[in-house]
């Protein structure tokens, strides 16, 4: 019941682009219709140009055929899903984390632990160190040891807390795929330069992303993120610990590039409803 109430609070957003294939068949995709409308007369004109030996008609036919093929096969609309659906799918993960935090009475902080680079050799018993994880401490008692983290356990005892996969882990992998590089190999300054255009232009996950390095921390400003409504969803606590998937992916990326543990200090929702501000802190571990 509670979950349903929270679900309804994520309002549909304006920048909705529907997947054309999801609704109907291939013929209803606008570019396919345009493609056919160009391809058929183009092919006819080309055939007639060969018969009549007309250069002008051949130019017209070739152009029409080319644009027809282009629209029909190559530049189909990209597959998009509604941005409100993105936030809705992320909601269940946060609700589950909330339940765990409540049940285990965890009130500490979330620490994004930097993983070891993928290509570095580690013995079998330390393989767990290559995973990106978030440690949520039960209290502000400190960080777990490397041996504890290497065991890939969920419940940690010294100090008390839980280790979970970051909500932005999938997004981080997508970022690395776009970059075609392992983020651990990047310099921090390089990462801060690359990330904003990657998120806004390539992945189109926000209208504007600004990341600034501050004293022993970072300031992140996201405008028009599809996950912004998660921050205003009532009673959702874990979002303030972990950040939304986008903020979480950025935290993971910073942890990976700097090799230091990153924690989310605070977040702020600007009253315009579009902008989310977050402050991260680097923790020496």
């Amino acid at each position, binding site marked *: 019941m509670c979950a349903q109430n929270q679900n309804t609070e994520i309002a549909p957003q304006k920048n909705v682009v529907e997947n054309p294939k999801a609704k109907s068949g291939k013929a209803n995709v606008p570019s396919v219709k345009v493609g056919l409308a160009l391809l058929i007369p183009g092919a006819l004109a080309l055939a007639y140009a*060969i018969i009549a*030996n007309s*250069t002008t*008609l*051949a*130019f017209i036919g070739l152009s029409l055929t080319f644009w027809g093929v282009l629209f029909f096969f*190559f*530049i*189909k609309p990209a597959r998009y899903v509604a941005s409100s659906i993105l936030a809705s799918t992320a909601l269940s993960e946060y609700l589950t984390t909330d339940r765990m935090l409540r049940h285990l009475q965890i009130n500490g902080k979330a620490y994004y632990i930097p993983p070891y680079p993928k290509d570095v050799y580690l013995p079998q018993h330390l393989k767990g160190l290559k995973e990106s994880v978030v440690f949520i401490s039960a209290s502000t008692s400190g960080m777990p040891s490397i041996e504890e983290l290497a065991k890939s356990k969920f419940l940690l005892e010294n100090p008390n807390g839980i280790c979970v996969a970051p909500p932005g882990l999938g997004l981080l992998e997508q970022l690395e795929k776009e970059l075609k590089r392992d983020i651990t190999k990047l310099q921090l300054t390089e990462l801060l330069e690359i990330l904003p255009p990657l998120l806004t*232009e390539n992945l189109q996950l926000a209208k504007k992303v600004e990341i600034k390095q501050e004293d022993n921390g970072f300031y992140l400003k996201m405008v028009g993120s599809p996950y912004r409504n998660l921050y205003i969803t009532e009673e959702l606590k874990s979002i303030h610990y972990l950040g939304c998937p986008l903020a979480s992916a950025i935290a993971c990326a910073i942890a990976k590039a700097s090799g230091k543990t990153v924690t989310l200090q605070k977040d702020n929702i600007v009253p315009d409803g579009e902008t989310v501000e977050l402050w991260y802190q680097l923790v020496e571990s």
Partner: protein
Amino acid sequence: MNFPMTLSDISLWLAVMAIILLITTEIISSITEPQIMIEKKRLRVVALALGIAFMATVVMRIFQPF
């Protein structure tokens, strides 16, 4: 029944098409909030392929003037 275009005609056609497509991809890429949802990468690939094809015809012209 011969194809009525010479290599020179095809070269001209390729140049014009490559320019149109390259300008289109550049304009689409510069729009921060695009209204045209198309696969930009593929469009760019096609534009570059046409450009290369045009260059190939130019090279052919150097070695085999027509």
